[in-house]
């Protein structure tokens, strides 16, 4: 009797339930909110266990090039996934655009930002927060906008967060009156969650085609490809769109 009990427990411990895998996913900071929701649904639907690590795309890239144990990368641009494929750190045929990001000029104060973004040129503010242009695609896109509008002189008022989450925190705490953040951080189901914002026209900055890719080191992990397939499902695309992202039809 006792032997059977021990044997059963041992069997349970050794043969982990059928093909449930561990996944470690590197996620661009702007996609943190939707990805938490998607990961929870994916775990429920597939039985795989998912852990998420968030950061600026440039930082995640540096980590991956130095051997970080991620299985999948959800980047905030296309160049990073492309570079990883070139260096054979990622699998070429798994690369696809899971969302198209939108940049917004946002303030925690209601009615502070007008719907045409004139507040930038009027200059009635002290600090403008952006994500680090060197590490975060949304930061680089924000610099594009300033250049396109001929407002480079505002660079004196820029404060840089290490990722788009950090930039958002500067604005949300009121320490910077304005900031360029990701629409997904301040927008849900067609309206601002709080404060006021301007949806920056996409033609003012480089496109934010956010690409996902499976990393070479997890070539044989079926959960990685399952997650990438899952991101293409209609109900998941609808969820991504509800956060203010563009999704290709």
């Amino acid at each position: 009797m006792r032997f059977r009990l021990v044997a059963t427990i041992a069997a349970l411990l050794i043969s982990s339930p059928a093909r449930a895998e561990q996944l470690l996913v590197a996620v661009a900071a702007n996609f943190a909110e939707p990805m938490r929701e998607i990961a929870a649904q994916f775990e429920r639907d597939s039985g795989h266990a998912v852990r998420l690590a968030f950061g600026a795309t440039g930082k995640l890239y540096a980590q991956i090039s130095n051997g970080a144990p991620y299985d999948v990368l959800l980047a905030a641009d296309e160049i990073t996934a492309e570079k990883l494929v070139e260096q054979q750190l990622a699998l070429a045929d798994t690369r696809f655009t899971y969302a198209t990001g939108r940049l917004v000029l946002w303030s925690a104060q209601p009615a502070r930002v007008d719907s045409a973004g004139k507040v930038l040129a009027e200059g009635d503010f002290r600090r403008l927060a952006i994500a680090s242009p060197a590490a975060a695609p949304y930061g680089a896109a924000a610099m594009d906008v300033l250049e396109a509008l001929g407002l480079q002189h505002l660079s004196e008022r820029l404060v840089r967060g290490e990722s788009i989450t950090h930039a958002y925190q500067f604005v949300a705490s009121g320490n910077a009156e304005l900031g360029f953040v990701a629409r997904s951080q301040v927008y849900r189901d067609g309206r601002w969650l709080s404060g006021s914002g301007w949806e920056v026209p996409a033609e003012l900055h480089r496109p934010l085609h956010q690409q996902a890719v499976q990393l070479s080191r997890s070539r044989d992990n079926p959960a990685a490809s399952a997650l990438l397939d899952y991101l293409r499902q209609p109900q998941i695309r609808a969820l991504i769109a509800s956060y203010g992202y563009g999704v290709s039809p």
Partner: protein
Amino acid sequence: MSGEDLGAIWLTLKLATVVTLLLLLFCTPLAWWLARTRSAWKAPVGALVAMPLILPPTVIGFYLLLFMGPQGPLGQLSDWLGIGLLPFTFSGLVIASMVYSLPFVVQPLQTAFEQIGQRPLEVAATLRASPWDSFRHVVLPLARPGFFTASVLGFAHTVGEFGVVLMIGGSIPGQTKVISVQIYDHVEAMQYGSAHLLSAVLLAFSFVVLLLLHRYRKGHLHV
């Protein structure tokens, strides 16, 4: 080394100097009180002073960001005084670094004051020295090793600061972009060469500081 790197080094030295001088001014009376008092407040104040030793710098930085922000008490005060908000400014960094390096200055001073004991002060008093006289001519010379250690540790600890600056600095060149943040930016942008160079400077700096401190202590014990 680029101009921006040199700017970061200069800014860091400036910050550490200002912070160390202000901390010496502020901490001398505080350490004196802690060394002498029998008040029930001694333990809680001592614990408060030591807190930056164990709190993660990100916690200190996060609370300072809220404390100095438009809704925070210090933020409202500085705004009312017409200074504006302190995050993302050099003055803001000075205040944050003072909080962060506080125990490194208070504790060596407190130890030095405690070691002097009552006796020299009693002798000075019988010679009719005023409290201020005996502080200047008895306490200060006797506590000199404590002042040296406090200055070196306060300075070095401020140079090595990262988490707090990252949270409230905003990485503005010439104002809040200190060496450690500059290194972090280099690493993030995969400029490993520049990161190496600056890191080597910091490495050499901390080694020399600790070596000097050790030598001084040893020399002082033999005197």
